[in-house]
């Protein structure tokens, strides 16, 4: 026997829980199941003509990078520093004031210091200093410089895929450093050597081929919409029309594919269909612009441009006047911040004017694309639709500001206006967790995979914590939001942290409350649930 036997408490006392006393540059990443996403399918990498398609996983010791991987990344960085003045400024301007440090939901939920936005950016900045800044070249580590090694590449992959590009940190940065841009550019650099995740690459390839993430072809798309029309009729007794690829329609409607294939998104789709019918909107769906989401925007400017192009292309082909956009998150960041220069100017379209109210959406003059919350709020403001708030009395609602509409588009009051006009019971979460300070769902920017679930729960903790508070204070049982990724990933987040809170879109609530001409006597909402629940909080 080697050594004396130790009692359990003596053994336990020998376990050290603190991190090894090494600097942050010397702590290589350990890939633990549940905290990272699987690599991109080589078939789809090849399909998109992206570099280095091969089978590999982050847990493999050898990532099978090209021989000259270092040269490729450094050349890529040099090129981007030249092309994007913003990147050069973000690299040089940060004074490490720490304002962003405690604002990231992943840092708050994990306590991992490399999730402080300043620290995450430092992972790139250190390499920038080493190879592109004079002080770093001369003084090396003393000037915060660090050589690009394989361990650094792995660390980049781990931490830049722990950023949801939500931009909460940017709200607090006195210089306005946009961390989402930094994350996008590092992911672009990683992509140059074939380091991607499948949850992004496969939807991108599908979107490129068929227009939407699921690879649904035109006949499948039509089946889905037809099915929804039938279902809406069985609920309301009203048969609506849902024109597809209708040339000469006034408006093209584009929304996330999840709206016609996912749950609980689907109830929002029913809401759109009911609303458009009720106001007699001359609009059309497109089988190719059948996706609002743009996963290309998570990893590359070029892919973002390629996937975004279909919006204007379809608007032109169908000969519409302007575009109406559904409840989507990052679509609105792409539309509002990039589309006009990526694929515009869309001078073949007109400045959007509501055909129902005559309201001119001057704010959309450049992109020619209007958010549906703004469009519907204008309908309500002008008294063009009738709403029975009592039809949402089974819901005690709170609203999660989806990151991109709130911070990239500034769409903050409109969804609240819709909820207040559709529901009797609406309760705000605490001020520092909503509006422009909203906490991310923790699963955006491609991170919503099942294999990454543990990390998603960490990142979603601050949001869930605020929902739990309003549930306990006000009996909230419904979390409204206007983003398809939210609708997919907030339900599991609620299930883990809160319990008893359903998730759904704002236009689901509007659809529930909407009084339709010729409707049958209604007793249930769009989910088929009774308007009033006996014995619930509202009945007290």
């Amino acid at each position, binding site marked *: 026997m080697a050594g004396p036997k130790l009692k359990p408490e003596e053994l*336990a006392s020998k*376990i050290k*829980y*603190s*991190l090894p006393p090494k600097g*942050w540059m010397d702590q290589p990443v350990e890939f*633990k199941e*549940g*905290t990272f996403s699987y690599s991109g399918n080589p078939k789809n990498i090849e399909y998109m003509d992206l570099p280095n398609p091969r089978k590999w996983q982050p847990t493999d010791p050898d990532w099978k990078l090209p021989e000259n991987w270092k040269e490729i990344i450094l050349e890529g960085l040099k090129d981007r520093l030249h092309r994007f003045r913003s990147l050069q400024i973000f690299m040089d301007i940060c004074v490490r004031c720490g304002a962003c*440090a*405690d604002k990231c939901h992943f840092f*708050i*939920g*994990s*306590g*991992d*210091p490399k999730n*402080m936005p300043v620290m995450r950016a430092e992972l790139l900045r250190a390499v920038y200093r080493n190879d592109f800044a004079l002080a770093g070249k001369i003084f090396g580590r003393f000037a915060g410089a660090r050589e690009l090694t394989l361990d650094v590449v792995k660390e980049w992959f781990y931490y830049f895929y722990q950023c949801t590009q939500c931009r909460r940190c940017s709200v607090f940065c006195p210089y306005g450093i946009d961390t989402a841009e930094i994350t996008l550019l590092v992911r672009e650099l990683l992509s140059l050597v074939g380091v991607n995740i499948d*949850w992004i690459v496969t*939807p991108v390839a599908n979107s490129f081929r068929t227009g939407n*993430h*699921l690879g*649904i072809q035109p006949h*499948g798309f039509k*089946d889905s919409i037809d099915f929804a029309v039938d279902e809406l009729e069985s609920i309301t007794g009203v048969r609506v029309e849902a024109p597809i690829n209708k040339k000469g329609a006034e408006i093209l409607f584009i929304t*996330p*594919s*999840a*709206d016609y*294939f*996912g*749950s609980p*998104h689907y109830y929002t789709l029913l809401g759109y269909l009911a609303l458009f019918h009720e106001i007699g909107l001359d609009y059309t769906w497109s089988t190719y612009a059948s*996706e*609002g*989401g743009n996963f290309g925007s998570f990893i590359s400017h070029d892919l973002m441009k390629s996937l975004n192009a279909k919006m204007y292309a379809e608007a032109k082909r169908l000969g519409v006047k302007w575009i109406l956009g559904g409840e*989507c998150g990052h679509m609105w960041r792409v539309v509002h911040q990039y589309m006009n220069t990526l694929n515009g100017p869309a001078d073949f379209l007109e400045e959007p004017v509501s055909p129902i109210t005559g309201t001119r959406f001057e704010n959309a003059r450049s992109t020619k694309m209007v958010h549906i919350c703004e469009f519907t709020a204008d309908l309500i403001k002008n008294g063009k639709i009738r709403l029975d708030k009592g039809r949402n009395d089974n819901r005690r609602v709170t609203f999660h500001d989806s990151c991109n509409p709130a911070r990239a588009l500034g769409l903050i009051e409109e969804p609240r206006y819709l909820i207040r006009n559709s529901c009797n019971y609406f309760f705000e979460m*605490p001020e*520092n967790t909503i509006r422009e300070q909203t906490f991310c769902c923790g*699963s955006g920017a491609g991170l919503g995979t*099942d*294999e990454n*679930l*543990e990390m998603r*729960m*960490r990142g979603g*903790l*601050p949001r869930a*914590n*605020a929902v739990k*508070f309003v549930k306990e204070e006000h009996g909230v049982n419904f979390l409204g939001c206007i983003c*398809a*990724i939210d*609708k*997919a*990933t907030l*339900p*599991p987040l609620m*299930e*883990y942290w809160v319990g008893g809170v359903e998730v759904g879109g704002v236009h689901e609530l509007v659809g529930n409350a909407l009084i339709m001409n010729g409707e049958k006597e209604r007793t249930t909402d769009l989910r088929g649930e009774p308007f009033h629940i006996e014995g619930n909080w509202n009945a007290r």
Partner: protein
Amino acid sequence: MSVTAMLQELLIRKKSAIVDKWVKIFLGYYPAESLKFLASQKDRFANPVGYTISSSAGAIFDELIGDSESSMTEALLKDVVRIRAVQEFSPSQAVRFVFDLKGVIRNEIRKEIDWIDCRDELEVLESRIDNLALIAFDSYMESRERLFRIRIDEVKARSSEAAAENGGVQNDSHVKRNG
């Protein structure tokens, strides 16, 4: 069996020191660079991890040394363990904080133990802490099982989505998918 009056009185007097040290040890498991934030940010929405442990520790301690049996401790422990169960900890690390309380209490009342001759009562108290550890272990497993169940549901949803995509079949139970 409750803790005797004399030990109870002593522990009430020492509560603040004991709870503070316990929380400090708890937060000490996180990286040093994050410690300041976790310990000093008092806003419960800006710092849910720090707030949950700081606000729960005192209440758990009160119930531990009190006479009443209540389920509040269980709920508070669950809140703490649910956080630890998805963070960068092994199972033993995740629940170890409960056992830490024994050491903290013994250290704090070391001098008084002989003086008031309360070794037997301390054993009672420590077996109550062991019970807390069992509750924490149950909570940890419940959290992990919930996590796995959620993951299975997501995988199942994706399979039916793939079936729908390949066969063009519309499924009544609509599937989950990012948009």
